[in-house]
């Protein structure tokens, strides 16, 4: 099907979690007749179970809508869904590059949030036209006027440009569709130039191999045509081209400005990279589209199977996950305490949680995850530099000159009354204050520089609880800097447990050690013998507790009739035991490893 580029509008929706992005997308689908009300399934674009459960989008997705505008012209609207979380900002920027415009959706009762703003700035940097939308105007707590003013303060322009909708009731949806065709620019590519199409997402399908989402920037792509992926120099044939409405539909050609999917019989995800440019093999473009960069893991954690026999299954599961998630990086790791496993790199904490949950849920694995850490750089006395992705990688103090740690630029938006709380929290985390701007008398935008290692634990939780859930956060990498860091080792029964060791700032080492030791004493059940739990820097013990030996573990009274019940009770208790991991002679429950993640320092 051919559509002149002037009648195409490519856009995405930028919104904070819960601000109604998915509901709005559903409503647009319904209004343009892409789906009937009967087919209406809430949040139709979020496909993965996990995405549905958490109400967030991880992978991008594109749907084509046909909209008959008031002018009588029918437009092709391509709604390109973007991930909403900071961890996935690289995916966001790829998706935005496929669009000419974006709807910036803000909840009429909540106002602008940091993530939304960060993504809006990304969109503006990409040169996108923004339509400010205030959603949920039907809510009793809605204050559309105030929120519109906030939007104007952030984006510029005037209040008149703001569209007011209720995705829930459908109010204002017509106005929004008209604004999309009137205000957003049509794609500008050259239909006669050699093909250039941007790969803005890809995923692995068991039957078809790698499926890429592409945006045709110049020229057109036809089925059966020989194409070249420019970054990897892979030459293949375009087996299938398709669009979604939202049901999949095969097409023979995708022309300039259009968005669709491409299957080329490629089985290895590494060969098709998000951000790469597809061109014709016969008549290649002279230059690729700008912007491919390798996704960079920011947070690392060790993943170990509870049952050592599951190591190979874990390897296979990671391989399969990576097919769909090129940001996932891992390498085999051996822990003295936990045996064989992997050190896995993630884009952020949410990414880490999602991967772990998918491994446990979809691959039925029982995992122990070690405390997350960031990638440090050790400067040796010899002048050499060593990457430290795990506390165990830290070279011996005798050869160590200094340690550098990654910093991030953090933006926090908070109601004004919590500014003090936020400043105190950030100060505890070794944050350096940057500028502060008032979005309105009630809300302020604060900028900081903070070591990434200080926010990977529980910073976000603390921020949320300190501001009654009102503050929002976004961050981006901001280089490395030398800090006074030490490794705190945790010893169980005199043996260092690498899974519990961590790198912290020297001033915080004592508090960390004390808290960790106290927590482990609570979490590790009593054993057959006294178990000392110690925290140490090098050979110097900074904190110690003892888990007293277990003395009594017996049913006092066992009469004839009770034998069945007693056996069942023991069986239930044994199930709990199965989730224990032997560390030396000590049985450690999985929660102990997880608890290390939640430790408050």
């Amino acid at each position: 099907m051919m559509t002149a580029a002037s009648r195409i509008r490519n856009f995405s929706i930028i919104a904070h979690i819960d601000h109604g992005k998915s509901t709005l997308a559903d409503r647009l689908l319904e209004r343009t007749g892409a789906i009937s009300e009967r087919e209406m399934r809430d949040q139709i674009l979020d496909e993965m179970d996990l995405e549905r459960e958490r109400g967030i989008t991880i992978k991008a997705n594109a749907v084509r809508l046909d909209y008959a505008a008031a002018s009588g012209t029918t437009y092709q609207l391509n709604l390109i869904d973007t991930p909403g979380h900071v961890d996935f900002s690289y995916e966001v920027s790829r998706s935005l590059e496929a669009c000419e415009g974006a709807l910036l959706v803000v909840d009429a009762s909540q106002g602008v949030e940091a993530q939304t703003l960060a993504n809006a700035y990304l969109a503006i940097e990409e040169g996108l036209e923004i339509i400010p939308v205030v959603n949920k105007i039907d809510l009793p707590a809605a204050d559309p006027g105030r929120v519109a003013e906030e939007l104007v303060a952030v984006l510029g322009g005037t209040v008149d440009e703001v569209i007011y909708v209720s995705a829930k009731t459908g109010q204002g949806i017509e106005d929004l569709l008209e604004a999309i065709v009137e205000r957003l620019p049509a794609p500008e590519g050259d239909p006669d130039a050699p093909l250039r199409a941007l790969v803005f997402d890809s995923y692995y399908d068991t039957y078809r191999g790698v499926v890429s989402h592409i945006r045709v920037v110049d020229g057109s792509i036809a089925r059966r045509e020989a194409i070249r992926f420019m970054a990897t120099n892979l030459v293949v044939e375009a087996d299938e081209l398709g669009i979604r409405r939202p049901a999949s539909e095969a097409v023979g050609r995708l022309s300039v400005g259009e968005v669709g999917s491409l299957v080329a019989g490629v089985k290895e995800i590494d060969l098709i990279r998000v951000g790469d440019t597809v061109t014709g093999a016969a008549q290649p473009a002279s230059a690729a589209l700008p912007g491919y960069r390798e996704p960079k893991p920011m947070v690392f954690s060790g993943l170990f199977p509870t049952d050592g026999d599951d190591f190979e299954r874990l390897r296979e599961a990671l391989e399969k996950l990576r097919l769909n998630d090129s940001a996932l990086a891992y390498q085999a790791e051996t822990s003295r305490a936990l045996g064989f496993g992997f050190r896995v790199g993630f884009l952020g904490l949410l990414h880490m949680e999602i991967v772990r949950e998918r491994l446990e849920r979809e691959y039925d694995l029982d995992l122990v995850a070690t405390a997350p850490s960031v990638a440090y750089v050790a400067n040796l006395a010899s002048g050499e530099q060593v990457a430290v992705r795990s506390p165990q990688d830290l070279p011996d103090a005798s050869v160590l000159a200094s340690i550098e740690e990654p910093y991030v630029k953090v933006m926090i938006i908070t109601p004004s009354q919590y500014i003090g709380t936020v400043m105190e929290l950030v100060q505890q985390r070794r944050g350096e204050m940057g500028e502060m701007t008032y979005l309105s008398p009630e809300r302020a935008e604060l900028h900081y520089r903070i070591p990434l290692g200080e926010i990977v634990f529980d910073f976000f939780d603390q921020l949320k609880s300190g501001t009654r859930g009102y503050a929002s956060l976004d961050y981006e990498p901001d280089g490395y800097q030398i800090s006074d860091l030490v490794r705190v080792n945790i010893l169980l029964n005199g043996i260092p447990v690498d899974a519990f060791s961590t790198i912290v700032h020297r001033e915080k080492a004592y508090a960390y050690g004390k808290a960790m030791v106290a927590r482990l004493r609570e979490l590790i059940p009593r054993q057959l013998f006294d178990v000392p739990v110690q925290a140490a820097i090098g050979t110097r013990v900074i904190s110690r507790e003892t888990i007293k030996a277990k003395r009594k573990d017996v049913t006092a009274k066992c009469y004839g009739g009770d034998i069945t019940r007693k056996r069942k009770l023991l069986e239930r208790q044994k199930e709990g035991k199965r989730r224990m991991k032997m560390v030396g002679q000590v049985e450690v429950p999985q929660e102990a490893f997880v608890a290390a993640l939640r430790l408050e320092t």
Partner: protein
Amino acid sequence: MTPGHERAETEGTVRPDSIELAEEARSWRSAYVHIPFCARRCPYCDFAVVADGERGSGETDRYVEAIVAEISLEQAPFRLDAVNFGGGTPSRLAPGGFERILEALDGRFGIADGAEVSIEANPEDWAPGYAQELIAVGFNRVSFGIQSFDPDVLTSLGRNHSPEQAERAMRAARDAGFASLNIDLIYGDPAETDASWSTTVGRALDLEPDHLSAYALTVEGGTDLSRAVRDGAPAPDPDVQADRYDHVADRARGAGLVRYEVSNWGRPGHACRYNLSSWMMGEFLGFGTGSHDHRRGTRARNIRRLDAYLERVEIGVRPRAGSEHLDPFEKERERFMVGLRLAGGVRPGAIGTAFLQNPDGRRLIDAGVIRRAGDRVIVARPLLTDLVARSVLSVSPGEC
């Protein structure tokens, strides 16, 4: 006396009953009759009980007839080596009731000469003449629920008797001619102190019981005690209970009582036959509400509710609430696990042998929790018996 002998109990000069007698007990058969009536419900008790004022509490005569009817539902002869009346509070029943039931048991199954015929009793029910009447109908053993000699602990446990009543009841039973007297004690109530426990143990041993059971106070689900603990009342402290256990174990041994099970001590020849048989996987019949039954590898249990029990029995239907049949592996595993509770130990069999060789078993041997003694496995630290049993559960049929 070695202090803290829990760490490795050595056998005394007297062999515990659980070796020779226990081997015999394997072939014994016994009957358990449950008498659910109580003056009041003790806060820690989770047995099938009907307290005064509750529905059915006046139905003792009807209940006795129901037991007789339930006995008559049995077909096969089953010579009984032990009969035990438990509760509830059996001593709430008039002697005539026991006479009816014992006659029915003897008529249907035959009670062996020299069989143990035992009753659980509360000291406050021990009116003058009652002991003689019980002997006249065939009892030769009584087990008193004395629990403590500390009035504060007795109050806390919801018991109705005084320490002096307990002493009088024991003497009266002895004078009446009971061949075997047992005292039940409970330790670890938060109202108890080291000193009061010492006094309790001393006064109990001064009465020269033939048998002593000392049980740790246990918080069972659904009891008043568990609700109180949930609402913040102090729970029994396992370390304190371990101390109390060590104390009673030392003192009992000093008084010539030999431990033959985790919580049970007896003079030679006075091990409770009914219990010993059930721990040796012997067969037993159960009658009355909530009672349990074990025959030919099937474990069955009766309905707990009195009214439902009566209705069933009175229309000639077996009042079963459920049953389970054990396959040979489960049966063997149960034999080994329950046998671990016996001080004389247990023959390991295929499962025990596999267990002793696997890492869990070796760890427990190295830590001195279990040891081999001849052809038997003994738990040297009885207070860790469940820990051992859970490890045994990890043995799979494939390992044997």
